[in-house]
């Protein structure tokens, strides 16, 4: 599989697939972990602790700060599984790791069929290390 590790780390949890990309800034509340974009189909959903499937990044570049703050507060997703790589999400997770030594692995799958297949699994374990990523179904 051609999955690319963007931010290293390990995580496990229930998977949650977003029907549309989400801007973390303006669309996500770091204090509650919930989606607050009123136009988003999953408005109100809580992302905390989830293996979050999101096709791509979106919106304001301040999303990196909101994600880093959510990681610090423990309200962030446990891992973010993208279809295509996103610079803003990568940065937010990298900085949280630098400042607080808390991992929120970020992976780009780069294959639509594979991304859809993984997103349909109820629980996953993510192990992302130097250049490679493993996503394993969990019971």
């Amino acid at each position, binding site marked *: 599989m051609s999955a690319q590790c963007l931010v290293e780390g390990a995580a496990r949890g229930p998977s949650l697939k977003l029907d549309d990309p989400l801007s973390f800034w303006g669309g996500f509340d770091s204090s509650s972990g919930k989606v607050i974009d009123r136009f988003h189909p999953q408005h109100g959903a809580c992302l905390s602790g989830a293996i979050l499937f999101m096709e791509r990044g979106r919106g304001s*570049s301040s999303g990196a700060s909101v994600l880093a703050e959510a990681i610090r507060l423990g309200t962030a997703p446990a891992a973010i599984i993208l279809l295509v790589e996103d610079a803003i999400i990568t940065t937010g997770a990298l900085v949280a790791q630098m400042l607080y030594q808390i991992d929120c692995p970020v992976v780009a799958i780069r294959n639509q069929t594979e991304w859809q297949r993984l997103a349909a699994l109820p629980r996953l374990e993510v192990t992302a290390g130097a250049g490679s990523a493993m996503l394993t179904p969990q019971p």
Partner: protein
Amino acid sequence: MDLTATDHDILEGRQGRAAADAFTLVLKFAEAVGAQRLLPCASAHVDGCLYHGEASLDFVERYVALEGRVKVPTTLNVGSVDLIHPELFIGDAALGAAGKRLMQAHLELGCTPSFTCAPYQTLLRPGFGDQLAWAESNAIVFANSVIGARTNRYGDFIDLACALTGRVPDYGLHRSENRRAGAIVAVTGCKDASPDQAGGIAVAAGLAVGRECGDTIAAITGLPGCTSEDDLKALGAAAASSGSVAMFHAVGLTPEAPDLAAATGGRQAPVVARLGPEEIAGILASLSTVADGTPLTAVALGTPHFSLTEFDRLLPMLDLAPFSVPIYVNTGRHEWDRLSADGRAGRLEAAGITVVVDTCTYVTSIIRDLSGAVMTNSGKWAYYAPGNLGVDVAFGTLADTLVSARAGRVVRA
């Protein structure tokens, strides 16, 4: 990754500890996005001054402690408080203090105290082809599309890391082959629109580009002949609100799109949206959460920050004063200096306009009465304020917002 002698100097600490530390972030980021090398960076625009919690401040203080200095001209995006008119801030005092420290910490790193989301207007206009490390979604789109400079969608942190190292990863929109349009948004029946209507058409086209194109670059055809640089600014801001847009081509208007073939690089690109006057009216109507006739509590202009030419469009409309509700206009402190120097500021004050600098009414506590709807001519404000501020919003053209401010309810010019 091919590192140059300069890169090795930075990495091995010969340009200071802060540069070396920031370089590790630039390098990891560059590897994550698949860059093969780093480029010298002409300028940075840093979006780290909005306080999003302790992480914002912890990151900057890390480099203050390491005695960091930015290596290229670096402008700052808006902060949480108006440092020139601090009394306008009505939010939580501790939050205000943290936001103020965040702004000052950036100045200690050598950043320019611009505090604007539109540094390209009066302060630091990049040249065509310049390689930049810019953050703030509207500024990114404007630099790429309207100026023809080159930046990716850099975010908080990486923008400052590039500024502290003077290096930017060579990928994405830094490379010519990635700057061609892959989709067409065709505007029809609008060629002869008035300058006031052109503002709304630009916002509708921008929202459609964001929704339909994602990160595929759009070539927009058929925009009104009178579409101004301010309208293109509004278009880009709307597009970057509704989608992950970093660049568009407005055929016949923007520098890399003298014609459709130049915009697409001669490739076939599908028409993904056709927008006639009816579709445009529908898109703009969907931005309002209240019906026409609804009472207003304020009007919010200047998202992105108002330019001097926008003030010149606004000034004749002040003949409508007195207004029934407050009108807030966000702009940069450098624009405000010019307005103050030439007397335009006095005319705004006489008409009761509240000019807000260094920040923006949709990200911080400025507007005193949010009990009713707020009207705006900004697609970006309309898109985000209901979520950020929990407020109802009405969208209109600049002229609509002024006649509504006089009437105290949503009316159309």
